[in-house]
């Protein structure tokens, strides 16, 4: 049918198959670009635009007022902003470091020792990563509760033991209500949540290391610790670089865990107030969209610089080692 039509009226207009070849691909790929422009690029550009304006959402788009760099200088002279950055850095470190220190040996153990149970164990460790934050908050509130919490009950019970009792506190610890403990409590939840994810990354990295290397090493009489030190660690560097970079970015964008655990308040002494939380507060509670937008760009710069430093310090040589 098509063919007869085509031959009957040659060159009249672009044929169906022409259309299919030339334009159809663009139509098929357009959903991605439409979504990307609407939900990816536009918000970023709008946010950049917003960061130079004073605007209270709720007053309508017409009420934007250009203020130049004032939103940036406002943030840079705001003690709470610096406090939030400090909290974020501490939390990123407190929660980031243990994740990797646990995940690497764990992945090695699962890879080497638990071959048969590997899938089950991996799934168990990965479970926290996919658990809903609401469920997590319920669980950890029950655990951390000052008067009624399981952790305090256990600690108090341990305090009653002879000999080792002195190591544990006699008083109940107000985990989420006291400045000294808020950050540890938040870090614990973050470590619990993301260690499984890192372990999975390392596990996949380990599986890419050729088995012959280990076989050769064991023929040469290398112990498991030596194998880990001289084969696993060096060959795992590219994956470590990726995992650390992801942790770095994720840690600096920390929001959900501290927000939920402190009821959005930042906790005692604001010790749990991260920069993203402060940004959210500036937007949602203070209705100061411009300052919040500027804050997001400042955080972006911090993340960018630290990622670059990470790249220089350990990424380059790590990746170069593969050549």
């Amino acid at each position: 049918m098509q063919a007869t039509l085509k031959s009957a009226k040659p060159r009249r207009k672009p044929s169906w198959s022409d259309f299919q070849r030339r334009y159809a691909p663009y139509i098929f790929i357009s959903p991605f670009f439409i979504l990307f422009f609407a939900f990816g690029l536009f918000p970023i550009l709008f946010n950049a635009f917003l960061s130079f304006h004073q605007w209270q959402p709720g007053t309508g788009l017409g009420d934007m007022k250009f203020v130049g760099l004032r939103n940036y200088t406002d943030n840079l002279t705001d003690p709470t902003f610096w406090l939030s950055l400090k909290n974020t850095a501490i939390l990123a470190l407190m929660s980031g470091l243990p994740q990797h220190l646990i995940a690497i040996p764990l992945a090695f153990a699962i890879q080497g020792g638990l071959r048969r149970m590997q899938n089950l164990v991996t799934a168990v460790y990965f479970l926290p990563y996919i658990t809903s934050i609401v469920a997590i908050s319920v669980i950890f509130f029950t655990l951390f509760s000052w008067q009624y919490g399981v952790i305090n009950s256990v600690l108090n019970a341990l305090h009653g033991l002879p000999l080792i009792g002195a190591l544990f506190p006699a008083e109940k610890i107000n985990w989420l209500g006291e400045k000294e403990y808020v950050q540890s409590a938040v870090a614990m939840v973050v470590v619990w949540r993301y260690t499984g994810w890192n372990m999975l990354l390392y596990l996949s990295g380990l599986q890419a290391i050729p088995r012959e290397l280990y076989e050769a090493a064991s023929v040469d009489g290398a112990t498991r610790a030596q194998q880990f030190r001289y084969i696993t660690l060096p060959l795992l560097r590219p994956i470590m670089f990726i995992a650390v970079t992801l942790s770095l970015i994720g840690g600096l964008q920390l929001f959900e865990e501290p927000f939920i655990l402190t009821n959005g308040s930042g906790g005692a002494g604001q010790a749990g107030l991260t920069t993203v939380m402060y940004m959210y507060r500036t937007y949602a509670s203070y209705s100061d969209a411009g300052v919040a937008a500027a804050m997001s760009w400042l955080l972006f710069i911090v993340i960018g610089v630290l990622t670059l430093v990470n790249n220089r310090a350990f990424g380059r040589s790590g990746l170069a080692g593969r050549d």
Partner: protein
Amino acid sequence: MRNLPRLTLALSIALTAALGSASAQKTTITVGVFPDLDSVVKAALPGFNKLYPNITVKINSLAYADHHTALTTALSTGKGASDVVAVDFGYVARFAEGNGLVDISKAPYNAGQFRSQFIAYTYPQAMTQDGRMVGMPTDIGPGAMFYRSDMLKKAGVSPAAMNASWESYISNGKKVLAANPGTFLIPDAGEAAQIIIRTGLKSGEGLYFDKNNNVLVDPANPRYVRAFTIAKQIRDAKLDARAGSAFSPEWTTAFQKGNLATEFSGAWLVGHMQNWLAKDFSGKWASQQLPGNTYASWGGSFYAIPQQSQHKTEAWALIKYLTTNKDQQVLAFKTTGAFPALRAAGNDPVFNEGVPYLNGQKARVLWRQAALKIQPLDVNKLDPIAEQIVNDALSSVLDGSKDITTALTDAKNLIARRAR
């Protein structure tokens, strides 16, 4: 076949016309609300439709926070808001700033004409510094002290002695805890400070700013010094459960376990207590005025009309019905326990009935008294920021990391930074 498009066009024009004439007779308006206010609106509709058979009302109910977020988005983009929107007290100042909500003090609304019919402090809450009015008050939250009568009796403390002053609240509180080991006097010491900050304001003073936008938070301001001092005394005497804000998990658990001797809150707390918070302690709780003859309000709701609404006349008709109709306000009170902002509704016989949960105590009379005595507070657009900063200062005093003078000086500087 060639006539087909023309035919379709003709048909659709006829259809549109038919629909158009139908909608000219009957207008549909939407109401954006949050629970439990949605059940109040729902209960109001039969009565409203008797008066206005040509207005169909559709209720869009979202969870409390989602409702206000959606409203913020709708107002900032100028699209998507309902014709009537409920606004909680905490959000009024924020939405009042721009021009997203209709100024109902102007014609054809003239909300000012109803002012004398409402509890005095409600109107100023919905008015901006430049005199516009953005919402009609519907319910209020007169503050009260709730206490466990059994615990007080055990300690030989009378409720009147307990709430005579803040000092006697603390000294008697110690006795109550001594007689009831393992309990707390109050969920959080900070609550006492919040009440003192909110009461005893001089005229022209707001919570944190005066009329001329000067910061009132200051180590020389007796209101703040007293608020911080009393809270610190409560914390130092280990009387509070350090539960943080209301509805925190620690707060909820303490209530459910029956470990609290007193709590300050809006009258609406009774509804929560009997439904889920302290079900097992029915008849043991009772109500009194706040310590030291102070009166403060806990929240309240308003109805507003967004500028973008296409049916402002109908929207206003509904708002007027919901807020100024006595029977409707009484119905609302019976539906959810929402305390009426309309004074006439407060005179309904239902207010003289005892509250079963409070062991038949005629507490509503008490709350009505409190409502009439609460002083209006001027709202400032920077209130949310100042509130956060003062709360932080208070918590640093309570945990002992700053003394009161330092904390208030720091807070003053932080607020002043924003208030230029």
